């Protein structure tokens, strides 16, 4: 069978009366959308031969919120709040994709301190996203206690989000033109303490899972995704790195100064659920490494571009300068306009390539914003991975694919 045949899609629902290998009738069942182990509201129509999965057809759209349509009605600077909310486990990384796209079209580059703060927030988000993944996947496969440990550390990340942006989840911290505010000394205190403790905590998770016989039995050899298939179906993130391909956008197409940091791309040749688990654990360790370097070398200087047509003037200037008042008025009544053209910027989120395509017609609102979400593309590989596995393994496979349904449906 060629790769094209293996990935050719268009699944049809079983006709009643079709027989499986053991002589029994194929059974069509609904999995979700309200099943707790589907990571949200994913619905699968599964054909079973006994307990073996023969066909999987994902039905999505239960969480469609029309974010792309809404952004066409918002001004460029207002659109940031929408980017927070489609992949709700990694808001700053989505902010970054949108901000980089707008900045590329406008031809501005943010100062080094803003770039470093963006890297810090991105890596903290990657950690918190992987922690949620690890905790919930653990619960799904019967390791109840992992969630408690993971959410303990995630909560300190939430505290840091709150300290730096005032918001715990949807931070809107990274904006076109820079970042929202400079980091406070307390933020660096929290971060320093966190970075000191985190490697030990990652060891704790590994103690619970890596050599755990039940965890290994449930994940090793389950949900195989061959490297050549992973490439063809467009998988990205831990899905493609778990198949042994060192494809990480932070390394191959660096953005926001990632080329200045020393880190390894986590890969594993296992191609199965266990390999994806090991890749994510390694990525958490690398994220800590990047954070340490970023804090050490954080440059001084401004955190926003010096462009009054794009960002409001400081408060004290408003009292003395007429021009500042005009800029302030124009920005908050009309917003800025972006030159006509279109651009696509991709960043590496916890799930893979999350990109933002924007098309501008020269006005103060976008003509089109499209989010390329890793979850949407990775989910298409689900059937390839689940074929001939038991129905219980389907839970492990959905878990390690790490789809966020808000990101799939947008």
């Amino acid at each position: 069978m060629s790769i094209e045949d293996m990935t050719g899609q268009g699944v049809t629902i079983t006709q009643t009366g079709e027989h499986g290998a053991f002589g029994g009738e194929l059974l069509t069942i609904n999995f979700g959308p309200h099943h707790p182990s589907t990571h949200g509201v994913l619905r699968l129509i599964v054909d079973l031969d006994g307990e073996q999965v023969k066909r999987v057809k994902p039905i999505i759209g239960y969480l469609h919120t029309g974010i792309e349509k809404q952004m066409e009605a918002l001004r460029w600077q207002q659109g940031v709040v929408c980017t927070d909310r489609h992949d709700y486990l990694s808001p700053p990384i989505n902010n970054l994709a949108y901000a980089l796209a707008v900045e590329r079209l406008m031809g501005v580059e943010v100062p080094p301190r803003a770039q470093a703060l963006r890297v810090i927030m991105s890596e903290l988000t990657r950690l918190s996203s992987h922690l949620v993944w690890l905790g919930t996947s653990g619960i799904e496969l019967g390791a109840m206690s992992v969630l408690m440990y993971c959410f303990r550390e995630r909560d300190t990340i939430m505290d840091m989000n709150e300290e730096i942006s005032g918001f715990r989840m949807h931070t809107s911290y990274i904006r076109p033109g820079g970042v929202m505010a400079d980091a406070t000394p307390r933020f660096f205190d929290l971060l320093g303490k966190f970075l000191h403790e985190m490697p030990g905590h990652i060891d704790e998770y590994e103690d619970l899972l890596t050599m755990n016989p039940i965890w290994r039995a449930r994940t090793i050899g389950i949900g195989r995704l061959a490297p050549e298939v992973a490439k063809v179906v467009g998988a990205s993130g831990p899905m493609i790195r778990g198949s042994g391909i060192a494809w990480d956008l932070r390394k191959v197409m660096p953005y926001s100064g990632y080329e200045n940091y020393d880190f390894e791309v986590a890969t594993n040749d296992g191609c199965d659920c266990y390999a994806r688990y090991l890749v994510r654990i390694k990525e958490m360790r690398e994220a800590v490494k990047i954070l340490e370097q970023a804090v050490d070398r954080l440059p001084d200087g401004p955190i926003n571009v010096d462009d009054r047509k794009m960002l409001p003037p400081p408060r004290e200037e408003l009292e003395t300068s007429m021009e500042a008042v005009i800029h302030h008025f124009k920005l908050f009544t009309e917003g800025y306009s972006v030159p006509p053209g279109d651009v696509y910027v991709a960043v590496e989120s916890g799930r893979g390539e999350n990109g933002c395509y924007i098309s501008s017609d020269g006005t103060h609102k976008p003509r089109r914003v499209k989010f390329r979400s890793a979850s949407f593309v990775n989910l298409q590989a689900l059937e390839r991975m689940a074929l001939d596995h038991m129905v219980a393994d389907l839970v492990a496979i959905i878990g390690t694919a790490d789809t966020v349904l808000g990101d799939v449906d947008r």
Partner: protein
Amino acid sequence: MIADQLITDKGNSAGDEWITVPAPRLREALAALKEDGYRLLVFLTCVDHLADSSREWPARFEVLYELRDMEKLRDLRVRAFVDGDPPQIDSVHDLFPPANWDERETYDLFGVVFNGHPELTRILMPDDWVGHPLRRDYPVGGEPVEFSEEHETWQTPPPEA
């Protein structure tokens, strides 16, 4: 190599290379580009240029394909312009597997029909939805918001003492 007569226009938008190909020969062009090394379709989408005065557009709908060469690390955007009711273009789901869901999404939200797609049904909106929401002439909709100056019209009167 892609033949020169397939490229009707090309350029660079903020650092992104792009070419325009005639919509009826899209499959031919994408197959040639795939041979050329662009083996991954990153995404596929559509832009509705209704009432866009910033430029002269050849047609209302622009279907675009972002291709990537993972060996040489280069991206290429391929544009094709389509008009008509419904606008139609050939499906490329057999050349690039990720196009399958993307084409369904573009059909769902823009009403672009992809000829040859095995299962062109709605993917994000409910099956019985009317209209294609991301078209520019589709209203945003929403609930009316009552403001305080219209207070009398919605406030329930206090119970009689």
